[in-house]
């Protein structure tokens, strides 16, 4: 029980770090060269994916235990779907930029990563209190 609580706290901490990482990477990518932009984009999106997986995995556990209502589940899916869409757009843009190094693709990628960051933040802000109760 104690270990479970610690794991849940750690998931919350992980989310905070993921958001910090997003902001740091989002700022850093503007000034760097192609390889660094691709690496920064990859690490940012991979970290976002881990935060999303951790949060939805925990929410699904809570739901199975009857600790999360249908309303919370529905709202989480709504926020998660916004993130899902932005994330996959950003991954496509990263793949495109990695192949072309096109400046227009770089600009689109930066905007997409900022959007992913924003939508992950919205979702985690909503889900955080429920995860903390677990």
């Amino acid at each position: 029980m104690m270990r479970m609580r610690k794991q849940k706290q750690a998931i919350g901490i992980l989310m905070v770090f993921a958001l910090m990482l997003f902001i740091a990477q989002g700022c850093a990518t503007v000034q760097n060269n192609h390889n660094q932009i691709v690496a920064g984009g990859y690490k940012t999106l991979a970290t976002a994916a881990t935060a999303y997986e951790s949060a939805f995995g925990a929410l699904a556990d809570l739901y199975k235990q009857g600790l999360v209502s249908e309303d919370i589940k529905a709202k989480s899916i709504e926020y998660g779907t916004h993130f899902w869409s932005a994330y996959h757009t950003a991954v496509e843009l990263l793949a495109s930029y990695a192949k072309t190094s096109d400046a227009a693709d770089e600009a689109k990628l930066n905007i997409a990563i900022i959007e992913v960051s924003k939508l992950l933040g919205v979702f985690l802000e909503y889900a955080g209190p429920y995860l903390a109760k677990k």
Partner: protein
Amino acid sequence: MNETTAAFLVALITLVTKYGIPGVIQILQDWKVDNPTIEDIEALKLRVPRPETYFGG
């Protein structure tokens, strides 16, 4: 490695020591990738399924 990266990694290592979270380990592995290939980037797509799938939907 800049200060933000170092602080981030130290914090994650602390979490791993205390809790051993698979997610933290995954992030550390991701951060080791300095030259991601197209295959690495394509693999990102599989890591974020639609949210309904977590609830059996």
